């Protein structure tokens, strides 16, 4: 088990962003669905050790992120793509990916090969030495994915990774996810339901800080035969579960 979460809670002032979440995840691709404001980003940020929880128990990669030493060990093996990732416009793709490889304390001798591998995996080999300010939104998103995978993480957290990618790139991205999910735990937070169906082995649906569904995409689809609305089976399951949770 790479992720063990028990009754995790996060409060911002009076706002309860995450309200008692339980989650267990091993290797594989794990989808996190839900409407905006459901608490997906806050949950991901807690898993990325960016913010601490207010209450509850969190164990990542078998370690407790509350102490400095284990937290550092977790972060070396972690990959994180935030929802809004800013870029250093004057950096090239290589410089940007390399910077974060160094900050993740990748051994210096392995950095050049790791950077080249990550850049080729996101299909940016032809733009490796281009400055970030010359790249389109979709390419910048792929740069973000590249920095997240550069250290071959055991825990990969992606928040809305396919924003700005065209359909063909999304297909390639899902193939990359399946490949990464063979050894690592990949958690993908998205509000695009079809992203999840194709690549994820397990799905959780969040609403108002709680998990209202957890299971396989097929099980979510099955829920849609009740009063779900939507064009695709998975979408119908999604709306059905949300409706049931809110009633």
């Amino acid at each position: 088990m790479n992720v063990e979460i028990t009754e995790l809670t996060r409060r911002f002032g009076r706002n309860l962003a995450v309200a008692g979440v339980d989650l267990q995840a091993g290797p594989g691709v794990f989808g996190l669905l839900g409407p905006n404001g459901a608490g997906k980003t806050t949950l991901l940020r807690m898993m990325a050790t960016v913010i601490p929880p207010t209450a509850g128990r969190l164990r990542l990669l078998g370690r407790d992120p509350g102490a400095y030493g284990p937290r550092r060990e977790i972060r070396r093996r972690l990959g994180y793509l935030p929802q809004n990732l800013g870029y250093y416009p004057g950096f090239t793709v290589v410089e940007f990916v390399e910077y974060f490889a160094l900050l993740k304390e990748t051994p210096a001798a392995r950095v050049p090969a790791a950077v080249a591998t990550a850049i080729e995996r996101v299909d940016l080999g032809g733009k490796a030495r281009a400055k970030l300010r010359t790249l389109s939104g979709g390419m910048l998103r792929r740069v973000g994915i590249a920095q997240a995978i550069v250290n071959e993480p055991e825990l990969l957290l992606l928040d809305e990774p396919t924003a700005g990618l065209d359909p063909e790139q999304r297909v390639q991205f899902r193939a990359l996810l399946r490949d990464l999910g063979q050894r690592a735990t990949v958690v993908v937070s998205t509000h695009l339901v079809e992203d999840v169906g194709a690549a994820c082995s397990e799905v959780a649906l969040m609403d108002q800080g709680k998990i209202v569904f957890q299971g396989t995409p097929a099980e979510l689809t099955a829920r849609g035969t009740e009063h779900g609305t939507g064009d695709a089976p998975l979408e119908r399951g999604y709306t059905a579960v949300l409706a049931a949770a809110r009633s």
Partner: protein
Amino acid sequence: MRDTDPGLPQGQQAPPDVDLGRVWTAVAAQVWRRRPGWLERTTGRLLRSPGLARALLTTPSLLLPWLIASIVVLAAGAAATLNSGQPVVALLAPAVAAAAIAYSYGPGVDPAWELSCSMAVSDRMVLLVRALAVFAVNAVLGLAASAALGGPARSGAAAAAGAAAAVTFGWLIPMTAVCAFALAVATLARSANAGAAAGVAAWLITVLSGRVASGHFAAAVTDTVLFLPYLAIGVTCAAVTLFATRIPRGSYR
């Protein structure tokens, strides 16, 4: 997003057991790699962290354009001091340093700041190293500007020399206080601009009230009574900064 070699032309078939993708990655690794300069390598060995060294040397207020601007400002200050007899350099140096330190760290400065908070080289470590480096660099620049003035100021009696020394070096202590204040505001407000503005404004108020209280501008830097309050402010603001950048222990169970 693929693991095959780039652009295999139609009709060409590589031998099935040769991994051209791996070959290309090895070539690209060498062609694309960035070779750090001697300063970065040395800093990396000193700090025992190549990542920390890289973060330090990419500090916005340590980059060449910023340094040149600081030098120009202090040089202008030195010229003004020579012309007017007022210790302009001593009054300018803390303000310049406060602005520089506010621009060394944090969300106002680092567009990828949230990502930086998930890094093994912790953002607090980066903050510490950058703040110290910026402070040291600005102190050296200020000292250089003051030393350039040292010639004309030192001609005279020992008392005059003592007073000149106080003006020459006395601004270091207020500078510490102002820098700490600017940094605390920057981290609390999560904005480098706010920190710079607050630091410069606070210093301006200090200088002006010194003028009002004792009749000359240099009071803010020469009045030894102020040194203890300055240090107290410095320590308090440093503590505030540390608190603002904490990840509280004990919340994880």
